[in-house]
């Protein structure tokens, strides 16, 4: 059983969720005067100037995350919280954190997602991949089974996407709101009737690290729009 699961890998060429959206939604993402995510980008720009620029003359790169920082694997949001310590950390869905991560990610829109190359991250990458392939929940489904094995086919009328993270934070029409990768993955886990990891569980960042390698070569689309 495990061997079969390990054989699942993305056989098809990389495909961003953007390509599976309707022409109207693709146009919505591409038009900065309509893309609702731009509201958070503007907010982030304002917040950066007010709170971060005193140390960061230039906005730092977002695409290098998740990365090792102060000896720990951190994603961009966790790194921002570390900068702000001892101020209380922002939760993953805090409007300020979504705004800042949207602003920083947007600056690198169009550049390509890069596979993590740091040798010190290889063990974390393997753990992230293990989580991706781990059957979970009442339905005993792993991420790989749907998003590697069945990508392009349909579940209940919707196309199963390859499940890349190249557009996060993302404006999701189903949420009528901006949300983080963690929010989306929580939705996936609930969908297979699994108990989502706790908010501060390292599993989220490990998965994010693996998804970055898995989606390497796709253009960064922050802020993406998704149904």
């Amino acid at each position: 059983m495990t061997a079969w699961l390990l054989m699942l890998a993305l056989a098809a060429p990389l495909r961003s969720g953007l390509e599976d959206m309707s022409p109207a939604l693709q146009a919505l993402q591409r038009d900065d005067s309509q893309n609702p995510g731009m509201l958070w980008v503007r907010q982030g720009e304002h917040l950066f100037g007010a709170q971060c620029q005193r140390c960061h003359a230039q906005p730092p790169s977002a695409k290098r995350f998740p990365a090792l920082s102060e000896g720990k694997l951190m994603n961009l949001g966790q790194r921002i919280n570390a900068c702000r310590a001892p101020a209380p950390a922002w939760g993953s869905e805090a409007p300020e954190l979504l705004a800042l991560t949207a602003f920083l990610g947007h600056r690198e829109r169009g550049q390509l997602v890069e596979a993590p190359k740091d040798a010190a991250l290889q063990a974390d990458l393997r753990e992230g991949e293990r989580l991706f392939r781990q059957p979970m929940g009442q339905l005993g489904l792993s991420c790989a089974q749907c998003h590697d094995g069945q990508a392009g086919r349909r579940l209940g009328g919707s196309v199963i996407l390859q499940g890349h993270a190249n557009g996060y934070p993302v404006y999701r029409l189903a949420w009528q709101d901006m949300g983080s990768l963690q929010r989306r993955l929580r939705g996936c886990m609930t969908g297979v009737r699994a108990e989502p990891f706790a908010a501060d569980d390292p599993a989220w960042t490990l998965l994010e690290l693996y998804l970055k390698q898995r989606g390497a070569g796709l253009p960064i689309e922050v802020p993406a729009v998704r149904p």
Partner: protein
Amino acid sequence: MTRAIVNIGPVRANQAFEVRTLLQHPMENGQRSDENGKRIPRRIVTEVEVRFEGELAWSAMLGPGIAANPYLAFWLSLPSEGELLIDWRGDEGFSHRERVAIRFAP
């Protein structure tokens, strides 16, 4: 802090041009329930007014069917340069204003 984005292309005297606005607002329609089954009260933008140099140029009345973070685009034609005021008003005393200085392109 409420955010709004207003995009206007090049403007020339007495030539129709498009104003595109995007407002950050949850537009809670009043039909949803929270996880305890309690109805979430309605909280929407109800009217938008656009004034040019004090004169009402365009207005809209919005209902609960409008999605969150409403995008409103409309066309204007102006005889002169001047100040455009866009006012959004809604439930719970919501009010937001954007001022745009209209300058003609060559």
